[in-house]
């Protein structure tokens, strides 16, 4: 899978927040084989280099880092956070979050497009956290985004893919654009479903970090992502209304 020209081996991405400890975080990454780690810049960065010790631990994971603008509620805040992230992590990649609603943490579509345009103009490679809205997706692509990160459900809810129709439409409208289902996944089966639908990767955090055994859950998600991707590439059968036996019935000896 290529994201902004960079080859990424794993289709599973993990966040780095809320784990019981950095050691558990590292173990979850090891067992998941995740290739990208997202890091939240805003809160930890309250004082210049104050979060340096934790970030060093994250760097030691030896995966590609994708800083995010989690918790930003305005274009200006998101842009400033992105600039800080570029300096701190020496990368033009930024997962762009512009939150529009404090309770659902739903993206602000208008601010998102504006911030994406500003950041793209400044040379950033923007990964926008967006809804499944097709029109909004088009505007983000117009603004210069080459990857989209539609939500499955609101952040941290674990509800899975709440608008399957919308996600299918989005996938079908822009078949060439790499898309990562980001947020709302709670179980590996939901990740497998996203991959079966042809999404290129999934990103999750809470489902792993808040599990009783985060490392085991991370490995579970890795298997699910692998299973879903294989199924997508294997051209699945179409569902049908009538039962169709896989072995012929005619000629069976003991049919009643």
């Amino acid at each position, binding site marked *: 899978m290529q994201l902004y020209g960079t080859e990424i081996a794993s289709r599973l991405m993990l966040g780095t927040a809320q784990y019981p400890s*950095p050691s558990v975080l590292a173990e979850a990454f090891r067992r998941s084989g995740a290739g990208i780690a997202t890091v939240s810049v805003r809160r*930890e960065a309250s004082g210049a280099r104050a*979060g340096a*010790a934790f970030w060093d631990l994250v760097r030691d994971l030896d995966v590609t880092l994708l800083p995010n603008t989690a918790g930003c509620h305005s274009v200006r805040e998101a842009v400033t956070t992105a600039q800080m992230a570029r300096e701190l992590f020496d990368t033009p990649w930024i997962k762009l979050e512009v939150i529009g609603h404090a309770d659902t943490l739903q993206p602000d579509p208008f601010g998102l497009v504006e911030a994406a345009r500003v950041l793209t103009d400044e040379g950033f490679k923007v990964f926008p956290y967006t809804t499944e809205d097709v029109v909004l997706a088009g505007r983000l692509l117009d603004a210069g985004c080459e990857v989209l990160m539609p939500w499955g459900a609101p952040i941290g809810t674990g509800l899975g893919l709440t608008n399957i129709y919308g996600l299918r439409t989005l996938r079908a409208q822009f078949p060439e654009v790499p898309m990562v289902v980001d947020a709302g996944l709670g179980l590996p089966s939901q990740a497998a479903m996203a991959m079966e639908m042809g999404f290129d990767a999934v990103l999750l955090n809470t489902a792993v970090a808040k599990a*009783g055994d985060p490392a085991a859950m991370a490995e579970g998600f890795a298997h699910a992502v692998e299973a879903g991707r294989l199924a997508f590439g294997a051209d699945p059968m179409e569902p049908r209304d009538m039962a169709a036996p896989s072995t012929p019935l005619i000629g069976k000896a003991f049919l009643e």
Partner: protein
Amino acid sequence: MTQARVIGGGVAGLCVATRLVERGYEVTIFDPSPRPGPHGCSWWAGGMLAPFCEGETAEEPVVRLGQEAAAWWERQGVTLHRRGTLVLTLGRDRRELDRFARRVAGHEMLDPAGLAALEPDLEGRFNRALHVSGEAHLDPRAALIHLRDRLEQAGVRFVAEPGRPEGLTFDCRGLAARDALRDLRGVKGEMAVLHSADIRLTRPVRLLHPRYPLYVVPRADGLFMLGATQIETDDRRRSVRSALELLSAAYALHPAFGEAELVEIGADARPAFPDNLPRLVRRGETIHVNGLFRHGFLLAPALARLAVEAASDSSKPEFWHEDHD
């Protein structure tokens, strides 16, 4: 008499010194600040001795060794309240309580009547609650001062200097020991102290919330300590955001906190290793006692016991790291 130095007069240093005195050592404590106070992160602790509740996220040794804490503090003559912990959720987060119950041993699920019987002032506000009865709480500042004064009476020398290792030395400096312990990092915790005459609680209350978890620890004279923030930074500034979170969560727990007096807001960075478990790191004749994370008053008694035993009988206890660099 065998001599021992303790560097750092926080909860780790005072517990180690107490164990050393018990074993007949002649002890000198070095700390630039002569008395327990706001310079050390022990000062900002909640004082919950809650090994079972901490087991929601902490590793097994915290649950096991933390169970030693209450009896130890009691033996030192510290005032201790064995009234358990109450765990609550707001209406729409009620499933958090089921998750917590699955992961935490020794709890009992209470109905509204059961909750009202334990804490009358919370009557009618919550449909269910967990009571973890085998837990306790203390006033951490009073406990530090008590240990310190008792050590002085026992002949321990307090030297108001940074202190250097010499002979048998227990380095209990916390985050200041980062010059020697490279894995150590700061995890910021913020707290507030409120005064209210309108509400009475007799045991710590934990409010589970996916974004703004809170604990409230009652102290004497109508004081309540609020805490729970945990941020990966060694920045010690008191942030408006954390204050808003703590105070809003307290208000959601009981509106009486909205009318309370804001007595104090504090913040400090707690020393932690990557697994958030403490370590005993030996270098020559120095033993580092560090990484107590958010479990200072809970784990310092056990960690001090292991450290002093190791020094006396050359055992290699749990959390032991030999370090030769």
